[in-house]
C-alpha cells in the first residue's frame, strides 16, 4: 500500500475495484488509473457521425482542395500567357481522362464550398441553427452534386 497523502496517488484504492470517480472526496486521493481512463473533452472519435458534422468537415476538406487547386489554375493561366504551344499542352492534359477527373473534382469542390459558404451566411444571421440545420446540410450535399452534374452537362452541350 502506498499512501501519498491528499491529492496524490493511492495504489490501495486502485485494487478496491471502484472506478466510478477519479477523485473520491471521502478518500481525498486521486487514483492514477482512473485519472487516465476518465473521459477527456469530447472529440471526433466520441460522436456518432451526423450529416451536419460531415458537411462541416467536408467544407474544410474542399477548402484545402481548392487551396491546392490554385496551383493548377496558375499553371493554366501561365501556360496561356506563355504561348499557344504551352497552352495546347495544358489543355490537352485537362482533356485527358485524368485531367477531366481532376477538373470534375475541382468543380464539385468549388460548388460544395460555395453552398457551404451560403449556409454559413444563413447562420451568420442567426437563422438555420434549429432542427432545419439537417435539411440545410442535406441541401448542401445534394445541391453540390446536382449543380456539378448540371455544369458539366452544360459544358458538353456548349462545347
Amino acid at each position, binding site marked *: 500500500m502506498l499512501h501519498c497523502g491528499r491529492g496524490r496517488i493511492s495504489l490501495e484504492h486502485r485494487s478496491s475495484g471502484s472506478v466510478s470517480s477519479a477523485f473520491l472526496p471521502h478518500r481525498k486521493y486521486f487514483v492514477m488509473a482512473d485519472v487516465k481512463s476518465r473521459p477527456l473533452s469530447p472529440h471526433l472519435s466520441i460522436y456518432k457521425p451526423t450529416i451536419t458534422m460531415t458537411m462541416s468537415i467536408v467544407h474544410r476538406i474542399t477548402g484545402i482542395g481548392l487551396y491546392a487547386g490554385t496551383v493548377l489554375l*496558375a499553371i493554366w493561366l501561365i501556360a496561356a500567357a506563355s504561348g499557344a*504551344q504551352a497552352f495546347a499542352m495544358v489543355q490537352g492534359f485537362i482533356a485527358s481522362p485524368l485531367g477531366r477527373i481532376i477538373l470534375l473534382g475541382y468543380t464539385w469542390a468549388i460548388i460544395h464550398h460555395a453552398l457551404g*459558404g451560403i449556409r454559413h451566411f444563413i447562420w451568420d444571421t442567426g437563422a438555420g441553427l434549429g432542427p432545419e440545420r439537417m435539411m440545410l446540410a442535406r441541401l448542401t450535399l445534394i445541391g453540390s452534386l446536382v449543380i456539378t452534374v448540371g455544369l458539366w452537362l452544360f459544358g458538353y452541350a456548349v*462545347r
Partner: protein
Amino acid sequence: MSTFSAMKTPLKHVRGLGSSHSGTEHFWRQRLTALANIPLTIGFLCVVYATLGKDAEGARAILARPFDAFIIALFVISGVIHMKIGMQVIIEDYIHGEGSKIIALALNTLFSIAAGAACVFAVLKLTFGAL
C-alpha cells in the same frame, strides 16, 4: 489597427482586439471575400465556358479580352485572400508547436501571395498583348 492616441485610455486601445491582437478583422474579411467569390466564381465559369471548344489560340484570345481578364484577376485576388485566411484557421486549429506553427503560417502567406501573383501576372501579360 487603431493608431496610438493620447486621447484614448489603454483599455480603449485593446478593447475588441482579443487574443489575436487584430480583433474581428479576419472574421470580417473572410465573409467579405466569400461574398465576392460567389459572383466572381459564376463570372469565372462563364469565361471557362467561352473557351470550351476553342483551339489554344482561340481560348487565349478569350482570356485576353479586357473584361474576361478583369473577372479572372478579381476571382484570383478575392480567392487567394479567402484561402489564405482559411488555411490560417486550419493551421491554428491543428498545429500547436509554436515553431512549426509560425513556419506554417509564413509558408501559407508566401504560397498565397506567390499563387495569386502568378495568376494575376499571367492574366495581365495576356490582356496587355502577349498574343
